């Protein structure tokens, strides 16, 4: 989970973040995908029932340990659930059907609220909410397993392709963005190529450039602060930089960034954008996916490229925060 968000200092904040992100992945990434495949006849209900039997009952949830350990385990199980969804959906091509990302956006109601799946709320005291989320994540994990088995049984994907995809996804993360930024700081020619050619330039760093349209790079300066959002869904160059921090997917972020970005940044991230700096919001609409090139902090002249990369945070790649001097 991300640092820097003021909520992240306390248990409540952690559990709130897990609930919000779990609901996002359940309602947007996996359940609509299952419904879409059923709708198209790519899988049938009986495949899911068979997959359910093969997978066995959901694994029992470990409920011992203190609150902090349970919250940490909860976050780990959410991360693992997100990885399992990615493995069977992100960049996977089915043998007999073409299902581009936008089909899933329609299915989940991005363009028509009538299709949106009902959201759940998690109420009660902290421990009770933790228990509800533990169960919910285990159940969704079970659905993902049954869904994955159904696709394998139908010959739409192979175990080998899934394993390869899991490996590919685990090698992608914001660290790629950190390396890109550090290179751009030390090499002005690379920076120019990066801004002009996007994905082409990152090949120079032996980073797989990804294939989801064009990469836009917005450079922060003394006068302009750029920040990225996707108001329509949650587009991000995730095939290059990994998933963005959880708050990027929240409605709160998407709405407040258009109404008052300066206030939103201050209240959600605790950073006051210098008043003389103009704010430019970049709304990704899928064909160009944007990242921010943050400013190099002062007092870093003596640092190596690798040390510079260590300073870069996931928040700074979106433009939600600046990178503080070391």
């Amino acid at each position, binding site marked *: 989970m991300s640092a820097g968000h003021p909520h992240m200092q306390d248990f409540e904040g952690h559990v709130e973040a897990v609930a919000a992100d779990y609901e996002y992945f359940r309602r947007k990434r996996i359940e609509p995908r299952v419904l879409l495949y059923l709708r198209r006849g790519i899988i049938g209900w009986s495949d899911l029932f068979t997959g359910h039997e093969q997978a066995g009952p959901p694994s029992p949830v470990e409920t011992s340990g203190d609150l902090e350990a349970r919250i940490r385990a909860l976050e780990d199980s959410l991360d693992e659930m997100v990885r399992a969804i990615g493995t069977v959906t992100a*960049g996977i091509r089915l043998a007999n059907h*073409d299902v*581009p*990302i*936008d*089909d899933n*956006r*329609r299915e989940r109601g*991005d*363009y028509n609220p009538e299709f949106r799946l009902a959201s759940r709320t998690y109420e009660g005291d902290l421990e009770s909410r933790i228990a509800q989320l533990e169960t919910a994540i285990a159940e969704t994990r079970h659905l993902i397993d049954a869904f994955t088995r159904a696709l394998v049984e139908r010959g739409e994907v192979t175990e080998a392709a899934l394993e390869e995809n899991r490996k590919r996804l685990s090698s992608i993360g914001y660290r790629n963005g950190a390396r890109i930024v550090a290179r751009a700081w030390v090499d002005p020619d690379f920076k120019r190529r990066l801004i002009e050619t996007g994905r082409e330039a990152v090949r120079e760093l032996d980073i797989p450039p990804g*294939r*989801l*349209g*064009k990469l*836009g790079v917005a450079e922060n300066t003394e006068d302009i602060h750029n920040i990225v959002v996707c*108001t*329509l869904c949650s587009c991000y160059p995730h095939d290059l930089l990994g998933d963005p921090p959880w708050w990027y997917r929240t409605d709160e972020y998407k709405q407040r960034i*258009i*109404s*008052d*970005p*300066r*206030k939103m940044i201050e209240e959600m991230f605790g950073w006051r954008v210098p008043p003389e700096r*103009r*704010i*430019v*919001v*970049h*709304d*990704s*609409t*899928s*064909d*160009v996916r944007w990242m921010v090139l943050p400013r190099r902090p002062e007092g870093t002249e003596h640092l190596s490229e690798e040390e510079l990369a260590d300073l870069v945070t996931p928040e700074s790649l979106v433009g939600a925060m600046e990178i503080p001097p070391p």
Partner: protein
Amino acid sequence: MSTVRFAVGDRVRVKEECPGGNPRTPPYARGRIGTVIAYHGTIENPLDHRDVYPPLYSVEFTLGDVGGAEPAATVVADIHDEWLEPAPAENEGGETRGS
């Protein structure tokens, strides 16, 4: 559609709706006037959507024009050609850019 209809600096208006067009234009931008700040060409993105969408422009709107609180801030949305039309000439000041 191979002709480039707008140049950087042109004022454009986003259509209120675009029947048969792609759905990737944010609601807040619809019906609003902005300025073209970049041309991206035609982007093939088969993993994302089935058809190849028309050429893409980055269009910058002042936040005040799309219901935001800070007039000096701007939002840049990437909008496909089919959603755009030249902005009507402004009555005051005789400004006709982009028409």
